């Protein structure tokens, strides 16, 4: 009932927006556009669009086939490093506040600027979100860890070194489980576990803005913003799984309250290391993080979206295959990736590689982390996203996994909280209903919270706020809908009214706007159906003789359009049409 009211089109399109940006516009012109300009002949737009879509499909298919071919011959190995800004009040080594949108250079302490004679002052509170992340990633927290200096010269690095944890990081040996619903590659099956080598606390750099040829503007607000670096073992073998891994790590560190801003706002950045080896050949020469037999790896720095992670790995893998197949050798080097490009580019080679000269920082005492702190943090950690998902897709909520995931990921969990409020209120309103009806409520609420309300938000380009449509109002609206006192379309109109700021109670809106559903009688349906069949008897004939049932939809649409607004139910209309046309 609910599904048909919504119309499947809107659900799909919002879903696509939520999960990943679409890409056809970029690839289509590659195949079709040049020809179009060379040949003067006029192609109708509709045909053009069809051709483009076809070209895109075949391009995707080709890519998939060649990927599969190369996968069978070459084994790809990927490790991921993620830098995430911790959600803290103060910087890592000064009392200056952290900020992302303040006036440049307004939150800077003496030590942040590396002024001579200034010294670090470790801010203990920054440890809490870092520990939450480590616990959420199943790490062993080290009772003693230390800080080291990593040296390199760059304008965004005022001290000439970054303070990090190289020799003794605070957390080691964790893991993250990736499930099929996380978007891992089909060949990885239902679940794959990626080990996490370590988590380390470190400083962020300044923000620099380049004005070629020789001007750099520097904003030191970001200097020493606390970061965690998460390093996975090189255990990933497909680009899709690597992207899923980054996405999952972001979701976990966000849901445990360690990190607030994700990749989209620059609060999280990823580096990947990539190597390949030919299947069935003797193992490669290289060993990384105690995994041996790998090929020479390269590192791709500063990937700022999940798609960039996937695309850059594909491009780099293909580059390495091309080099090896033409008899070349892979150099250990650092490479960059520009969004929209098809190749990674070399940043610096091994001979020019930086020796970071890691040195224990002589000013900063070791960190001693007590068991008592860890156990109290672990107790207060929010439920992990995977456990919530399994509850949501279970019998109590019965949500499809593609709804459950965005629900808990959106708006830092606020959307999920809201959803919970709606379900609770709705269940209260529907105590009188039978068990079956009551069991269907969470799924219905999921639809509305995610897709209907989500659609309004993105259409109006507004940020999430639970007060735009109070949970109680939505629950009342859904209660009316469930009791068939209003139709789906009416409910959407009312939702939109509330969204626009109408603060009258739902019942009052329905009353005053005369929106309560007065169902059409059977006779009225029949009359309406007959009138629309009369508009296009040939089509009715086709349905009858050729059994082209798909065309029934057109008549349903006409009935909705011609009937009294808000009174025609699509399912009922279709029933009557079938009866009249098919007999």
């Amino acid at each position, binding site marked *: 009932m609910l599904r048909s009211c919504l119309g499947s089109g809107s659900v799909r399109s919002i879903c696509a927006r939520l999960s990943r940006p679409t890409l056809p516009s970029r690839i289509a012109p590659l195949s079709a556009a040049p020809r179009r300009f060379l040949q003067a002949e006029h192609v109708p737009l509709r045909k053009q669009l069809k051709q483009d879509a076809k070209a895109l499909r075949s391009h995707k298919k080709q890519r998939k086939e060649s990927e599969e071919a190369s996968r069978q011959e070459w084994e790809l190995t990927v490790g991921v490093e993620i830098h995430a800004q911790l959600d803290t009040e103060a910087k890592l080594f000064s009392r200056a506040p952290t900020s992302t949108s303040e006036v440049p250079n307004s939150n800077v302490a*003496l030590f942040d600027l590396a002024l*001579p004679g*200034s010294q670090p002052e470790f801010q203990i509170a920054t440890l809490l979100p870092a520990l939450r992340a480590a616990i959420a990633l199943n790490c062993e927290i080290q009772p003693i860890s230390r800080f080291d200096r990593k*040296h390199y010269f760059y304008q965004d690095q005022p001290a*000439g070194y970054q303070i990090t944890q190289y020799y003794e990081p605070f957390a080691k040996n964790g893991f993250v489980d990736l499930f099929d619903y996380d978007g891992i590659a089909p060949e990885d099956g239902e679940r794959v576990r990626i080990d996490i080598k370590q988590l380390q606390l470190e400083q962020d750099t300044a923000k620099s803005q380049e004005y070629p040829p020789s001007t750099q503007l520097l904003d030191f607000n970001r200097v020493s913003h606390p970061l965690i670096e998460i390093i996975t073992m090189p255990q990933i073998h497909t680009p899709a799984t690597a992207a899923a891994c980054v996405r999952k790590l972001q979701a976990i560190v966000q849901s445990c309250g360690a990190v607030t801003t994700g990749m989209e706002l620059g609060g999280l950045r990823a580096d990947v290391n990539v190597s390949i080896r030919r299947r069935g050949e003797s193992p490669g020469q290289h060993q990384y993080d105690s995994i041996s037999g790998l090929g020479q790896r390269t590192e791709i720095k500063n990937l700022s979206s999940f798609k960039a992670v996937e695309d850059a790995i594909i491009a780099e893998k293909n580059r390495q295959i091309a080099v090896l197949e033409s008899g070349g050798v892979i150099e250990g080097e650092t490479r960059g990736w520009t969004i929209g490009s098809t190749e990674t580019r070399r940043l610096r080679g091994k001979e020019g590689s930086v020796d970071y*000269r890691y040195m224990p920082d*002589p000013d900063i005492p070791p960190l001693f982390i007590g068991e008592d702190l860890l156990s109290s943090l672990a107790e207060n950690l929010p439920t992990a996203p995977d456990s919530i998902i399994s509850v949501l897709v279970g019998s109590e909520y019965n949500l499809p996994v593609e709804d459950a995931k965005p629900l808990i990921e959106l708006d830092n969990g606020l959307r999920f909280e809201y959803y919970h409020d709606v379900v609770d209120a709705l269940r209260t309103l529907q105590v009188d209903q039978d068990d079956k009806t009551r069991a269907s409520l969470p799924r219905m609420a999921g639809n509305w919270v995610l897709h209907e309300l989500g659609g309004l938000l993105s259409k109006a380009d507004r940020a999430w706020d639970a007060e735009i449509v109070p949970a109680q109002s939505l629950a009342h609206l859904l209660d009316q809908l469930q009791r068939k006192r209003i139709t789906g379309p009416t409910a959407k109109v009312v939702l939109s009214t509330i969204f626009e700021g109408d603060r009258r109670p739902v019942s009052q809106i329905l009353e005053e706007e005369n929106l309560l559903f007065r169902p059409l009688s059977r006779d009225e349906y029949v009359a309406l159906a007959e009138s629309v069949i009369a508009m296009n008897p040939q089509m009715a004939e086709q349905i009858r003789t050729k059994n082209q049932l798909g065309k029934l939809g057109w008549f349903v649409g006409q009935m909705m359009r011609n009937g009294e607004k808000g009174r025609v139910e699509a399912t009922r209309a279709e029933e009557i049409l079938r009866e009249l046309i098919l007999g």
Partner: protein
Amino acid sequence: MKFTTTTIAALVAVLPMANAWIFSTCSGQWDSHGNQGCTKSSCKTGDTIDWENTWGSDCVLRLYSDKSCDNQIGIADDDWNDHTLGKSKPKSAVDGRLISIKDNICTRDMPTTCASGILDKFKSPFNATVVDELENAGAIVAGKTNLDEFGMGSNSINSHFGAVQNPRRDGSGEDLSAGGSSGGSAASVAADQCYASLGTDTGGSVRLPAAYTGTVGFKPSYGMISRWGVVAYANSLDTVGILSKTTASVRDIFDLLNKHDQRDPTNLSIQSRSRINAYHQTPRFASRLTSAPLRIGVPIEYNVSELTPSVRRAWILSLAHLQKQGHTIHPVSLPATRHALSAYYILAPGEASSNLAKYDGVRYGTRAAGPDGDGKPDGYLYANTRGEGFGAEVKRRIVLGTFSLSADEIDNYFIKAQRVRRLVQHDFDSVFAAKHPLHVTASQHAQNDSVTHPDVDVLLCPTAPSSPPRLSDLTDPKKKSSLDAYVTDVFTVPASLAGLPAVSVPVTVAGQGDEAELAGIQVVGQYGDDELVMNVGEMLEGRTLEEAA
């Protein structure tokens, strides 16, 4: 003189001070002979400054000992005291006293150059904790003193502003080294330009200049005095040291500065301080110097071939003097000493290469003309700025430190040197009667478990192997290499590596001819035994020792 006008012009504007003194800028009033400058705005170039009277108004000395000066005139501290101390009850032992500050300690109101070209116009936006403490106690910052660039040197000749000259001369009237790196501080005290001076001691930089200039130079235990605002050379070794004419005045200043400062993460916590005190108040250690005679250790490894006869004589006579007072002398062995100097010259440059990476001319300091990296994407980013800004010795130590921290070498150099450092600490722990008070557990307090070790209270040895070298010899490239200068630190470096308190006091050995020889004698104690070290130093300070007939 090289530094005059530019440095003074950088002395900015008006500074409100508790005692209503006003420092203001003017340029060109430097008395290049007297190493004195006046910041009085009404002064004109060439004016004769009546130091006696202008002191009472709004002029202030800026002490910068310079090689070219031949007559370092200063205001004797007694004169100054007459001026102010009669007015009201002094608020501390240093109230109204002039104290000069080594120019690697940050002052808000005067430049802080570290004697480096890269900071030659730099002014710190904040005061070091030690400067605030002194000013709050009523002391007057007399000025900033010259040094080896960033503290790297043993003769105060590696300065962007020229070499420091020792107020003492040798028999033939030749200019002598004032020692380094706190040579300007020592010279300002020796020349009576101020009551005391704050220096820094990383491997002997306060003790060696004290020995060369005939003053008292004290390096406290690591972590006693705040390093906030002290420009780092090698953080794990850096200490603020005090120079003055007498141990008594050094003690006064130490008592003021010896307190916890949370802005310095390496500063001793209040809890650690009370543990140290508790340990020293146990009967065994509380009685030292009051009733029991002291056991004085003589490290046999310090009797090196480079030791000059006059210094050896001063050492022997000092021991004899103490023995005469009833104390006992015990030879001890510190076998790791021979490796200590090498370890120091790995560790200190290693940390220095890291600490000095911040000088890039971007946020402060002197910047070379033209774009970074010569505008080329693969150019070396700050090569020009750092190449022009740093002096030769600093560059040498940065390269040395960069090498010993590099991925291929760190295990062979930096890590090994850290192990040697542990051995040096262990050596000291095995000869002192007192344990390292932060390494003992409460249950060990009462125990007296010593059977085999010598149980000495302090160690006594020379501060430097020889008397001060001539400046002309040091600057002559044919005569001396930097390695020779490194060797002068051989007796001071071990205490630095172990973080122990040490003082250098001057003694005079009555000569057989007309010449009396001045030498610095060093007293080293267990960690936290700063009081004891100063007290033993005081027994020798200023003594004229004669060979037994």
